[in-house]
């Protein structure tokens, strides 16, 4: 029982880390460009499909990962230059609608290219199998690798934002876009880079998660909505908030699904305990979000209401 609990904790961490890869791009794009991007889930899907296609073609998962990063970044840059750029000055309603249209285009285009049947990505041999964890339970090596990879990317992102020239520009862009343009920074290129960076992170998450689940059209949408919940909890525009929010949502969701049905067995018979528990568990993160917003309307680390 205790080892099952530990295993679920690790699963929660894994889901939180993957969510962070999604949410960080979303929150960066909002923070720097003031854009709400519904099509972020489509970039996640592009990454997963690119990984599956390249891995099937070359036989190498690693090349697939590179492919997912490249494809999502290129798709992101193109979309930014063709469509998104025209939306910065518009109100949020136009942004929601235009990026909703992008979802239709991406989903239907992918269905056209790859068909409606899900693709499967297999785990590379090095990372297949399980490892015995402290506490004596078996845990898949691949999931462990995802956690480590995700945490590495998260640290890299914090270093990029905090320590590099590009990071300074991104933070300056969040604070005052007019000023940094006046100081001679090419703001158009900066925006394209930020958008492509967010897209690449989403694509990477898509490739990772696509390996543990199946790769199919529409896979990005549930994750997108979770990522929204994350950045709303963390405070829109805050990378730190995205990290805390991701972990909070990842743990709450995983542990809720695991613990609530067990907890309700103390009060109900097992069948209805499972029903009530799982119904409540699927709503739990939204309840957490409502609570956070009730106490802090602009999220945990948000500044702008």
């Amino acid at each position, binding site marked *: 029982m205790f080892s099952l609990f530990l295993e679920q904790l690790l699963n929660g961490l894994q889901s939180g880390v993957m969510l962070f890869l999604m949410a960080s791009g979303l929150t960066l794009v909002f923070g720097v460009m003031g854009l709400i991007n519904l099509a972020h889930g489509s970039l996640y899907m592009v990454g997963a499909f690119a990984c599956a296609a390249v891995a099937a073609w070359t036989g190498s998962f690693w090349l697939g990962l590179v492919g997912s990063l490249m494809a999502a970044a290129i798709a992101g840059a193109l979309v930014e230059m063709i*469509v998104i750029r025209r939306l910065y000055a518009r109100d*949020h309603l136009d942004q929601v609608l235009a990026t909703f249209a992008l979802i239709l285009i991406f989903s239907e285009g992918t269905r056209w290219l790859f068909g409606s049947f899900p693709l499967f990505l297999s785990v590379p041999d090095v990372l297949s199998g399980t490892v015995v964890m402290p506490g004596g339970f078996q845990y898949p090596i691949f999931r462990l690798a995802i956690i480590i990879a995700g945490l590495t990317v998260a640290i890299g992102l914090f270093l990029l934002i905090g320590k590099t020239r590009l990071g300074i520009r991104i933070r300056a862009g969040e604070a005052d876009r007019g000023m940094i343009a006046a100081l001679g920074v090419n703001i158009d290129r900066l925006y394209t880079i930020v958008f492509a960076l967010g897209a690449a992170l989403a694509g990477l998450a898509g490739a990772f998660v696509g390996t543990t689940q199946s790769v199919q059209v529409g896979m990005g949408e549930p994750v997108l909505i979770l990522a929204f919940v994350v950045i709303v909890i963390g405070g829109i525009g805050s990378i730190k908030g995205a990290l805390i929010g991701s972990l909070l949502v990842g743990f709450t969701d995983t542990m809720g699904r695991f613990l609530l049905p067990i907890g309700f067995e103390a009060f109900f018979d097992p069948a209805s305990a499972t029903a009530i528990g799982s119904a409540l568990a699927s709503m739990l993160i939204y309840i957490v979000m409502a609570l956070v917003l009730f106490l802090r309307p602009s999220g945990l680390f948000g500044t702008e*209401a």
Partner: protein
Amino acid sequence: MTMNRETILNIILAVLLIAVPLIAQAMDEPFIITLATKVAIFGMAGVGLNIALGYGGLVSFGHAAFFGIGGYAAGILASHALNYEPIMSTPFEINGTTQMIVIWVVALIASAVIALLIGAITLRTSGVYFIMITLAFAQMIYYFAISWPAYGGEDGLSIYVRNSFPGLNTLDPLSFFGLCAVMLGIVLAFSAVLIRSRFGLALQGARQNGQRMMAVGIAPFRVRLVAFVISAMITAWAGALYADLNRFVSPSMMSWHMSGEIMVFVILGGVGRLFGPVAGAALYIMLEHLLGSTFEFWQLPLGILLLVVVLFARGGLIGLLAGERKHA
């Protein structure tokens, strides 16, 4: 009364909406009548959203939840009535019903209560937060509907016989269209009266400048909350009719795609225009039908078209045909 271009356009739209099914009846094309019924129902859902979005500036991305609540009110009450199972038996017995009027009242009350709760929390925020939180609440209700097994869960719930309305054979396509068209007319008239009333002016004032409204002694929060609730109720009413049209209700009525679609009706037709949602719904359903019958991946051209409308044709169909809004 002088008629401006928008009024004339509205009259043409109303005449078209009524004429098309009548011609279809004469030509024995029941499918076209069903399409027109869909336009009336989606138009009604859009009229509901337009009160919050168009007049109040409240970009709710979760109206599918209310649409679905209306649908489930029809589905749940009808399934209890058709299976002869009381909804509850202690302390007193409550039975299901197949009377549309009772169903509508339940749909309106249920959606009002839930919209009051959701609105009280979400309206504390604004801008992007409001968009995302309304979306998140709708997802919460959506997942609840999926995981709650009593009423079909993910598979949904069939309504074996369309619910009844006194003095009307609702199974006849043209009669059911007539019923939906009358309801749409009622909602349009209500909406037209509402936006010209003191309340409607306060709502539009709150959209333009909340602080000035406070300065003249009107609390924007309360005005917005009432508008949000009214908006949700109208959308739920449309949802109850939609469930009866399909004789089926499932969580997909509450999916965020549905929220997006209702929003698309409003924007395609023209935000804050009385007949905008009806024009938008008509255009959307015509496109869906025309593109869908020629091209398997019809959402691809639809998406491109939508993108072009947002980027280059602001003001939607009504804006294109009747010019800018007079009191924007």
